[in-house]
């Protein structure tokens, strides 16, 4: 049973465009929602994270939007750059446990 579903599986955007990645979760006990970025040959690295007490969090060109009632959250990348080309994973975790459940990842390609 996949607890975190991520879409789309891949995305190609032009430089300067907006990239949007969506995730849906099933377990209402989840209270921590990070996004990880992975470049080829490297391990994933934390990009940005949100907790359900806020509906939006912005860090530079990256914004997480969170919809608790719909059990969905999304990552928006504004002014996408070729250097943003990577695989992006959403994840979810719950208090009292350090475990993270990851989505299957989305490969983003930003064309120059």
């Amino acid at each position, binding site marked *: 049973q996949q607890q975190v579903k991520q879409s789309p599986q891949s995305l190609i955007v032009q430089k300067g465009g907006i990239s949007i990645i969506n995730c849906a979760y099933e377990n209402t006990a989840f209270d*921590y929602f*990070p996004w*990880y970025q992975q470049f080829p*040959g*490297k*391990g*994933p*690295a*934390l990009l940005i*994270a949100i907790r359900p007490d806020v509906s939006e969090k912005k860090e530079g060109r990256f914004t997480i939007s969170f919809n608790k009632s719909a059990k969905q959250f999304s990552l928006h990348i504004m002014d996408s750059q070729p250097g943003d080309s990577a695989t992006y*994973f959403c994840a979810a*975790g*719950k*208090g009292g*446990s*350090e*475990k*993270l*459940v*990851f*989505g*299957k*990842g989305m490969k983003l390609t930003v064309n120059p």
Partner: protein
Amino acid sequence: DARVTQTPRHKVTEMGQEVTMRCQPILGHNTVFWYRQTMMQGLELLAYFRNRAPLDDSGMPKDRFSAEMPDATLATLKIQPSEPRDSAVYFCASGLGLQTSTGELFFGEGSRLTVL
């Protein structure tokens, strides 16, 4: 520059052989995780430790996989015997728990395993 160190970075072996992967977590981190990454399944949690105690290995095939933390500076993942379906990239990650301000997990660069 604190980082999680994994060895080997690449391993090619034949079916039936024993494989041991090693991880040195970031000093001071109290949680250690083993994840397996494949194209089909993405990142799957295999096992995790808190303060060196195993807390969850439900994602790990028990008949052939084993994970241990002999001490705070070393975590191991062993596969015996290895099978072609074990071919994947295995990541170790360490952290201080999700209740910290960022809940960040720090991943190593992975061990790419190919079983022929």
